[in-house]
């Protein structure tokens, strides 16, 4: 009984502010004639018209497709590359400064190179995503593999585990949490890069839609596109956390004890 009221109270305190903010926005912008702050009602109208309408297949689906391909490629390349480089002390040391450089390079500055090499289009968008977003996962996988306990290393050697067994049962689980931390940054970078590359070098996609509407002063469209990007970023992060919880469930169990 008591706990029930507690949870409802928590839910209520969590909800009042967002609800109040939206209502405040709705009311204060209702009569707005300002060019830059159209009424929220108009924004919602445009949002529904465009994103539950023609732009769903024209822009939203292409963006999601490119994002999925790019993120998967970056993740797979980052993890396998990190494994290969991380398991040997010397390759690790050799790779470090280069990985550090690309890790610190703001990915979007690669976009001009992508335009020159591949031109404008989906292939280039994906290329830029992979090239820019692979590094956090690569770096964290290397670190995760490196941090393998010496006793465990010796142990797997004396049990004569094959390389596949060693990777599957010793190295990967050990590096798991750190790989996921890297993947999370890769996810954020991928979203940033897909949006940027669509803004600069694409003829469709959400990024293209938002920047184009800004350049043509279609302000309500700019707001609607920005809100859509925000919602997508939020959903992607929720989905990622759910997958992480699942994959690392055994780990949370261990650390709880």
């Amino acid at each position, binding site marked *: 009984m008591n706990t029930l009221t507690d949870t409802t109270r928590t839910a209520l305190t969590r909800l009042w502010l967002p609800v109040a903010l939206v209502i405040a926005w709705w009311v204060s912008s209702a009569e707005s004639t300002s060019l830059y702050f159209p009424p929220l009602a108009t924004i919602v109208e445009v949002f529904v018209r465009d994103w539950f309408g023609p732009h769903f297949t024209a822009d939203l689906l292409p963006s999601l497709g490119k994002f999925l391909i790019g993120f998967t490629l970056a993740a797979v390349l980052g993890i396998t590359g990190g494994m290969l480089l991380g398991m040997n002390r010397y390759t690790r040391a050799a790779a470090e400064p280069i990985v550090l*450089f690309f890790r610190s390079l703001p990915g979007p500055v690669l976009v001009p190179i992508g335009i020159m090499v591949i031109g404008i289009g989906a292939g280039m968008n994906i290329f830029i995503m992979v090239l820019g977003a692979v590094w956090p996962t690569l*770096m964290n996988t290397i670190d995760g593999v490196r941090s393998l306990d010496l006793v465990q290393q010796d142990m797997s050697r004396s049990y004569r585990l094959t390389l596949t067994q060693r990777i599957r049962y010793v190295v990967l689980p050990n590096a798991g949490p750190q790989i996921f931390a890297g993947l999370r940054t890769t996810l954020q970078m991928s979203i940033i890069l897909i949006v940027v590359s669509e803004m600069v070098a694409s003829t469709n996609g959400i990024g293209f839609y938002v920047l184009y509407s800004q350049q043509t002063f279609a302000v309500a469209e700019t707001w609607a596109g920005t809100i859509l990007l925000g919602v997508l970023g939020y959903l992607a*992060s929720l989905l990622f956390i759910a997958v992480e919880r699942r994959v690392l469930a055994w780990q949370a169990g261990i650390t709880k004890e």
Partner: protein
Amino acid sequence: MVAADITPPAGAPAKARPGLPVLWDARATDLALGAAAVAGVLGLWEALSRTGVLDTQVFPAASTVLVELWRLLGTGVFWGDLWATLSSALTGLALVVLIGTVAAMLIGLIRFVENSTWVVVEFLKPIPPIALIPLGLLLWGPSPTMKVTLITFGALWPFLTQMVYGIRQTNNVALDMASSYRLGWWLTTTRIVVPTLLPYALTGLRISASIAVIVSVVTELIGGAEGIGQTIAVAQINNALPTMYAYILTAGLLGVGINLVFQALEKPLLFWHPSQRGDTN
């Protein structure tokens, strides 16, 4: 989690190998290997463009780019661009510290504030700051105000999250002890609160700093505000490729530099913390 993402655990301590004379320690070997790999990549790049495998219309030779970078280092324009990028990032970062500290104290110490802001914070956190560039351009044009606003918005979250986490970690037993020993406000703050918070604050600040640089460069690249990013875009349009690559190199080195500065800061400030002592791992 966030911390683990960017903080590599302090370098694995060199294992003394019995039987080998200690002429080189492992750290020096690592450095030499790293330097050799960098030289190798540059050499490969050079060779590939010289032999025509890489199109020099797209990838000018490494030496051409490095010479151009050297030339740029002597020009005022280059330093002006660098400063435009860096100063916006630093201004944004200062705002992040200010806003983040106040907000973290409110969220970390008052239950009601924490619950009320939870949905809003969790919703705003994963929004890519880049998505706000068009909106920023509409509202402020390609100005420093636009840059600093977007930088602050983008870089706030790691610092805020770490600070809230740090405040939660402040040990209640230690605080109770401080009050029963009547340490007073000043001693409690300097001896218990600050040492607990500092590692979290610095980690958050380092992640925020690298985001700040990225957002700063991208607002210039797309929004056309003055700085490294804008020069890269302009150089690409004018087909001034060596300049473009020299600036891209600069952007990466700026990021590496920021990271190193913050790591260097952590050493003297956190020398007592386990992560900074050599005997971990």
